[in-house]
């Protein structure tokens, strides 16, 4: 760790007026992490900094997921050619405002970031075949105006309900606003029965937005193949298992499923798709 600093800086990026894309590892359908992983790969971004977990995460041991010991990570990447910064992180357990302040300090100081975009998935009760649109929440009227030419749902009204709490992305947007940094949260609906597997179509929709808005010139051929493959696999499952087909058909007809039906759909789709990979 750099002496006296709660982060490590590996290199000083050379960026001006850059955009920051943020994803949290704790995300519905892992849309955010998959999008930034894809962007990092395609753009050959390089890691330049990392926030030390001390003071933000419980370090009383490690969690194990998928047989692998996990450790909280909060990493920054940069792509000079596209003037893009990517931050991928676990959501801290405490010291939230201090953590967000640190993120903003780093991207302002070393990357001259002017716009922030957070990416996340949201659970949808709809079928995977139902047309879905990207939702946006801006932290200023100017930012909303700036994105108005994109095909986004940008007129959402929402208040946190009892028993729920705001997303960490909202906290970041609020903190950015306090520093006059424009920001937008992007939310992609993910059908509830694809949360545990993956939803490449959802990821692709988000990446298409960035491709247009940030002029990234990414070729999505591989992603298109992945979307086609998954659609084909789900179609096969529907043909083989009429019960599953019935559930998805009900969703396609805007009919709700019972709790038992929903649970069965989730379980069967997860098992069947995993078996094919």
């Amino acid at each position, binding site marked *: 760790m750099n002496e006296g600093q709660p982060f490590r800086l590996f290199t000083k990026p050379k960026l001006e007026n850059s955009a920051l894309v943020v994803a949290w590892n704790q995300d519905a359908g892992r849309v955010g992490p998959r999008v930034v992983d894809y962007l990092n790969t395609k753009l050959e971004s390089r890691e330049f900094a990392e926030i030390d977990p001390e003071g933000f995460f419980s370090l009383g041991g490690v969690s194990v997921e998928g047989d692998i010991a996990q450790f909280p990570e909060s990493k920054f990447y940069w792509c000079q050619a596209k003037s893009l910064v990517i931050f991928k992180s676990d959501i801290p*357990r*405490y010291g*939230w405002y201090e953590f967000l302040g640190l993120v903003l300090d780093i991207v302002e100081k070393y990357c001259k970031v002017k716009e922030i975009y957070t990416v996340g998935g949201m659970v949808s009760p709809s079928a995977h075949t139902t047309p879905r649109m990207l939702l946006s*929440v801006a932290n200023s009227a100017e930012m909303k105006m700036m994105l108005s030419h994109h095909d986004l749902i940008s007129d959402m009204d929402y208040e946190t309900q009892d028993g729920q709490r*705001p997303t960490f992305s*909202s906290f970041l947007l609020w903190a950015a606003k306090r520093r006059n940094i424009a920001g937008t949260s992007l939310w992609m609906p993910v059908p509830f029965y694809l949360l545990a597997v993956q939803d490449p179509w959802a990821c692709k929709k988000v990446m298409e937005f960035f491709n247009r808005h940030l002029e990234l010139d990414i070729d999505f051929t591989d992603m298109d193949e992945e979307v086609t493959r998954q659609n084909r696999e789900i179609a096969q499952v529907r043909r083989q298992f009429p019960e599953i087909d019935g559930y998805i058909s009900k969703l396609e007809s805007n009919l709700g499923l019972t709790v038992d039906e929903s649970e069965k759909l989730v379980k069967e789709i997860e098992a069947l798709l995993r078996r094919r990979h």
Partner: protein
Amino acid sequence: MGFRLYKEPKLNNPVLIACWPGIGNIGVIAVDILRRMMAAEELGEIESWDFFYPRRVLIRDGELKDLEFPNNKFYFKRTETKDLLFFIGEEQPSDGTRVYAEGTNAYRMANLVLDVALKFGCQRVYTSGAAVAPIHHTAMSRVWVVPNKEDLIAEVKSYENTVLMSDIEGRDGQGSITGLNGLLLGVAKKRGLEAICVMGEIPIYIHGFPIPYPKGSKAVLEVLSAVLGIEVPMDEINALVQQSEDEIESVYEKLPSEIKEQLDKLKYVTYAKPSEPEPITEEDKKRILQEIDRLFKKEPGRD
């Protein structure tokens, strides 16, 4: 990280009454009623975002308008006899897994509260909370008092309806006060301020449930109003006590008779000086708590 004052009134040696939520919300209910009855004015706040996760977001027409955090507000009131400062926190700054604050954040918040108090010349602090006691809910709550200096003992002994830790059998003057209502006493001591924590009793079989216990709050309110020389109308707290008693009684009536018999023993017990019949045993206590837990968790309309 800090506080924001809306105004800076001249106050004469004010007394600070500070409180955060805790068991039965005993302290917060008492202090908040006192504040409202005194018509204390808002003075300032601690910048909550440094300590808390937001609890509400407001989005309108696709634009994030506001985030709402738990309030941590200061109030003041000038009176003919004493000037008062109030601090009421809506939550303790915990790590999300505990109700009570501890560690760095708790220490920072305690110091911020005292920074404001000292800025206005305060030298005396009261905090308030709950004392879990082997009492029956039909009994009057007493108030446990803990000062942070030896030379305050004589003073707190003169308060009506109070007990010191040393008055309680088996404690030998020992104990602990969890969370910020206790920590503030220690930080005040470190910074040279007199501080006294007043804790209203709550029955041992009720303290684990997320319900207020206004009877304990009433006892605290009576002590604080007497100590501060303030007449406080008791109508509101009396109504809360009555409502709470009715609710507790309705649950109590549903307890199996053997459990009720055990709990009824508490009506005859003064734990500072046990009398016949003998108090409930640890084993009894465990069984009683399990039974009450079951009753509180039971869904309406189900056996």
